[in-house]
């Protein structure tokens, strides 16, 4: 079995097929669906917030001291820095396979001479973005921007390997109380559930071996 992660793939028949699953900034192909979900959505938000004017949640990925908002993964965040400036922190949720569409049996293409068959399927994955600020209304505004960005730029994301954005939700506000600190934080989560295409091919190795045996036996006789 071969995972096809670098689509669009060119079948032996010459037909181009499949969605690319890649990062936005450098077009790197991402084999792991879970990593793809988190990395591409984070990159998308960083690009969106980078285009915003200074003074309006401008994101600067090159200089941490200049950025007005932190956009990062849960494991990379500096928890103390969150106290200083607003932040968007991503947390990945479950990724599920549940026989969507034709249930993994969808044959995308078959190359008869070798018996190589390419299948495709859909996986469902979730990511949450925790929008954090010391001011509740600011956290609300950031959550609104995140929610709208995914809603509005849905077709653009589909070019990078998202089959579809299945659902978007803004959660309720949570007050995060910090020990020994007067600066409480307000957290508003934005949940995103998306379908991602998964593709793989199966080769009939047994048939190839059998072919070899037949050829060898022909030489001997």
């Amino acid at each position: 079995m071969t995972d096809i992660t670098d689509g669009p793939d060119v079948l032996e028949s010459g037909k181009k097929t499949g969605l690319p699953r890649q990062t936005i900034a450098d077009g790197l192909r991402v084999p792991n669906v879970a990593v793809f979900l988190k990395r591409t959505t984070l990159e998308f938000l960083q690009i969106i917030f980078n285009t915003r004017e200074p003074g309006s949640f401008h994101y600067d990925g090159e200089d941490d001291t200049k950025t007005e908002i932190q956009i990062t993964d849960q494991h990379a965040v500096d928890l103390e820095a969150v106290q200083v400036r607003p932040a968007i922190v991503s947390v990945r949720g479950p990724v599920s396979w549940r026989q969507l569409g034709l249930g993994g049996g969808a044959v995308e293409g078959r190359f008869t001479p070798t018996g190589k068959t390419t299948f495709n399927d859909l996986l469902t994955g979730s990511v949450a973005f925790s929008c954090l600020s010391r001011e509740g209304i600011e956290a609300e505004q950031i959550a609104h921007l995140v929610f709208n960005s995914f809603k509005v730029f849905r077709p653009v994301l589909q070019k990078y390997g998202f089959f579809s954005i299945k659902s978007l939700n803004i959660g309720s506000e949570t007050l995060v109380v910090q020990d020994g600190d007067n600066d409480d934080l307000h957290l508003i989560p934005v949940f995103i559930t998306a379908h991602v295409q998964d593709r793989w091919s199966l080769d009939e190795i047994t048939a190839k071996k059998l072919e070899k045996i037949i050829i060898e036996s022909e030489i001997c006789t």
Partner: protein
Amino acid sequence: MSAPKKHPKITLPGQRKVQGLKKAFQQVKDDMAKIHVASLSDGKGRP
């Protein structure tokens, strides 16, 4: 002279309150798992 009294931390109606960021992230994960399961089907048998 004694230090000024701190304002009591209040929670507004409908607002949840958790102690620390780690617990807050855990709560986000729990909520996300519920939403994920709910969004797996739209009730019409289609993705």
